[in-house]
């Protein structure tokens, strides 16, 4: 047991000093297993390349500038779509959450359209807008919108009545109550909505890129299939995973730590 314990204490000390270690170490056995299976010759190399080949392909695609370009295309599409989805979704969520008449009118409609999945819109969008950026943006905005609206509405309604009353009796107008009380109170839920929305949106984007296909990571992967390049398909998959890891670790988690968790609204 002692060597195991020692290894664990080493790991604990290293992660304390370099938090990045925590993100990398769990993947070591996964990659090792992958390499072992690839090296064993169980499958033909063309169908099942090893990690080194993927790294080499990564290097060459970066060198040719294809990967950075495609990555940028995908990330910009997601960012624009997410921003538009939030710009529409948060006000709509506040309206639905605060106004019972608006809720009565809009809730059934929201549930109905939420059920029509993002990709289910693609056939009609392709007829309307063709293989264009409009089609892809529509799909992402659509995908991000619903989790943001529904979670914002939920968050708005979870703000205690006493906080509304406290703000009003301290002289806040109704408009300022929205800004000072309702929005910050709903923020943890808005973040949940954003997290879900981005997650779904990312998947929808890859699907849209595969179908609409002019550039982007999804296009890269599907194009690689046409060329029979399993290495590039694997590379695309790994990039998808890594990118989400980065968005979560560098954008979402820090915001959550600085807001809801700091305020004691959500437990860590």
């Amino acid at each position, binding site marked *: 047991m002692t060597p195991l314990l020692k290894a664990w204490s080493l790991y604990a000390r290293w992660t304390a000093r370099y938090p990045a270690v925590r993100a990398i170490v769990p993947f070591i056995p996964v990659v090792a297993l992958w390499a072992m299976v690839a090296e064993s010759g169980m499958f033909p190399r063309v169908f099942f390349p090893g990690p080194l080949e993927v790294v080499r392909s990564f290097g060459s695609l970066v060198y040719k500038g294809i990967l950075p370009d495609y990555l940028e295309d995908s990330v910009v599409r997601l960012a624009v779509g997410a921003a538009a989805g939030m710009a529409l979704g948060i006000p709509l969520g506040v309206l639905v959450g605060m106004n019972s008449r608006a809720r009565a009118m809009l809730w059934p409609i929201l549930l109905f359209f939420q059920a029509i999945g993002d990709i289910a819109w693609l056939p009609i969008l392709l007829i309307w807008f063709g293989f264009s950026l409009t089609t892809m943006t529509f799909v992402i905005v659509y995908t991000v919108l619903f989790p943001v609206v529904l979670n914002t509405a939920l968050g708005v309604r979870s703000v205690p009545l006493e906080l509304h009353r406290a703000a009003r009796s*301290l*002289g806040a107008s109704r408009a300022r109550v929205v800004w000072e009380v309702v929005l910050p109170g709903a923020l943890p839920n808005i973040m949940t909505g954003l997290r879900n929305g981005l997650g779904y949106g990312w998947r929808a984007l890859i699907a849209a890129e595969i179908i609409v296909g002019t550039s982007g990571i999804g296009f890269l992967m599907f194009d690689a299939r046409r060329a029979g390049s399993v290495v590039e398909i694997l590379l695309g998959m790994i990039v998808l995973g890594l990118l989400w890891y980065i968005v979560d670790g560098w954008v979402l988690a820090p915001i959550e730590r600085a807001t809801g968790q700091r305020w004691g609204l959500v437990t860590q």
Partner: protein
Amino acid sequence: MKSLRLRDLSKTYFDPYAGAHVTAVHDVSLTVQQGEFVSIVGPSGCGKTTLLNMIAGFIPVSGGEILLDGRAVKGPGPERGVVFQSFALFPWKTVLENVGFGPKMRGLKKTECERIAREYLALAGLAHAADRYPNELSGGMQQRVGVVRALANNPDVLLMDEPFASVDAQTRMTLQEELTRIWQERRPTIIFITHDVGEAVFLADRVVVLSRGRVLKELAVPLPRPRAWDLLIEDAAFKALSGQVLQLVRSA
């Protein structure tokens, strides 16, 4: 003189479970002078919180009127500060921002809001906690913030709804003594709702006993100030008054 007058105030609402109209507050008339400290005491369900919510403007009245300085009030407003049982601090604002919220809503400059907030925090001995968030404070400290947040807005009347009911007994006594000290320093008009007879008598100039939505009796509290628990707890006059109020509440 900015007196608060309640004239034949009543509240009726429809109880969907009972399928009938229920009267929670029944023709309550009461005048509170500027600078006066009035406790309203009664058993649970006597309508005391409903009464306070009407004065605060949180719920509409069914009958009668509320006059502040001779003018009828409607809806919530900064001239009637409220201290809540649940503290109702804004979790996303620091202690300083919470206390400075009222002045900020009045449109004062940021530096001025901070100056006022710091002044009131010092009054409650909370200067060191200015940059903390509410969830980092104990219950007693949170309610101190709740009290000075309402005071920092300089209201004509301070409405307190069982503010010390959810803190432990020792802290409660300390808070009660601090409240009487702050009241003597600043002389705000206070209406204090409680079900605790000892608390009602300890704090107030006048105790109003409420029963089934009506004023059962009003009693003056001629105890000298400053009041401290270790003196009053054995005081014959305090005991006699508390006993009298307790009898009224229990008979209610």
